[in-house]
């Protein structure tokens, strides 16, 4: 009796296992994502996962910032995964309010950042600004 029930339960288990496996790979798009990631370099994978546009901006900022420079990220939602990834990639640079550099991801045209000059502009929305007088 118990063995019979067990066999039925195991058959259900296998059916669900196959169904959810197929669902994840082909309906939820995991296989497609793996295809995109497979031939990318480590740097390319970081870029894909972070978002190519944001990663390009981080890379540009990293090149401009001297050691020990601080930054402030603007245009990305507070405490979002993007903010965490930027902090991770940019370490040993720390984020502070009174930063040496502003990394602007989504600039609103009417906002003026006084005391800062653009040192790298990627497009109309993304740029890196440096505080006047900072090293």
């Amino acid at each position, binding site marked *: 009796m*118990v063995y019979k029930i067990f066999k039925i*339960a195991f058959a259900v*288990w296998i059916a*669900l296992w196959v169904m959810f496996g197929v669902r994840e790979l082909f309906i939820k798009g995991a296989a497609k994502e793996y295809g995109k990631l497979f031939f990318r370099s480590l740097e390319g994978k970081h870029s894909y996962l972070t978002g190519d546009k944001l990663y390009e901006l981080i890379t540009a900022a990293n090149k401009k910032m001297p050691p020990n420079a601080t930054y402030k990220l603007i245009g990305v939602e507070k405490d979002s*995964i993007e903010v*965490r*990834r930027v902090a*991770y990639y940019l*370490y040993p640079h*720390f984020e502070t309010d009174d930063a040496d550099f502003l990394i602007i991801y989504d600039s609103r045209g009417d906002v003026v950042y006084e005391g800062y000059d653009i040192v790298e502009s990627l497009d109309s929305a993304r740029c890196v600004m440096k505080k006047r007088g900072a090293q």
Partner: protein
Amino acid sequence: MQIVMLVIALLTAVFAGWNILRLVSFKRAGALPAEELLTAYGLGIGAISLQMLLFYFLNVRYTILTITVPWIALFILNMRSNGTGVRDRLKDGENRPVIEKLLVLGISLEVAYAFFRALIKPIESYDAVAIYAIKAKIFYLAQSIPSDYFTRISALYPHPDYPLCIPLAETFIYTFLGSFNDQLVKMIFPLFFVGILGMLYFAVRRFASRAYALLFTFLLASIPQFNSYAANAYQDLPLAYYYFVSAIFLFRWMEDRSRSQYLVVSAVMAGLAGWTKNEGMMYCVVNTAVIFAFALLDTGGRSWKTVRSLAVYLSIIFVIMLPWTWIKKTSGIVNGEIELANLNPSNMLKQIYKIVPIFYEFQKQFFGPKKWNILFPAAAFIMILNYKKLFQGTGKYIFISLALSVAGYCVFYMISLVEINYFLSKTWSRFLIHFLPVLVYYLATLLKEDVKL
């Protein structure tokens, strides 16, 4: 070259763990060589990360040499000791029926997929990046824990109170790789997955056939939530590993108390659970309570040997947790989510309303086949059907262990400062992973007479 260094790093971890096992004469307990290897891996990862924490006190920098020399010294010391012992043997015929081959295929698919998923992406998920990988990067770039880390830097990132076992283990891998490769470092996580599956297989094989053990190993491996956490660089699977191994060895010691090596290794693994995640401390309490129950129920509270065993168990956990607890205390690092001062009857009464959302979320997980297949309804059904066996022999201690785990998490939620619905949605499905291997093992013990394979 990086792959070669990765393999050397992982072998170093196994070497470190193996040396500790040899130090406690683990072989004499009769453990199988494969069990020793699977235990050595997790033990080595935990021990090396503890060693790297001790380097903070001694002001030693992380290099391949400074990390490996103590283990080579221990190896030389161990060579003098007598490590002989009679290993347990598993009986089996040579024939492998089709069902075994299919189960091996299913397990292999799940293991291969876990490795693939882990290694196709660098570390990228929220907690893995924000809490753990950032710490590993800080330690790797400084080749140590910076002197102002606990007083200044740690406060700049979330959860400075979370234990550093896995961040330091990642730093250990980076040190061997000689570069910050946050893709290869993820190899440590599916290896914990393999460790759990292997330990489950051999634990079940001790009382059942190969096909039966493979069946339960497959069931665990094919649980979607369990498999996905083998790849995302979270700490839940390493914690599940440490708790599971500590529990398995504890139950084995209860069956034969002359094998005290199992008790010692169980205590070390429980301590490492606490060193991996704050929730691990709860499992130290759970295991201690289980030994206490054992002392009362099976020895009638009269056995001084059991009391002594309890003292040894607690001492080992204390020694493992001491450096980290000391650092937290002296640096003023506190947990912002759980307030232990809230653990009092009047506050618990005030928080009683949380029981409703806790059980609502639990039933969502219970009947959630996308994450758990039909495990929980099946487990409930098996327990009802086998209610007479629930408290037989060692089974009652497995039951107590599981019941205390669930109760412990309910208490966590009751004393938590975080908004309950948000906290539940972020954590319940992960907490269940921690005791999942013990649950599957328990089901295997309950069904052993009904399902003959």
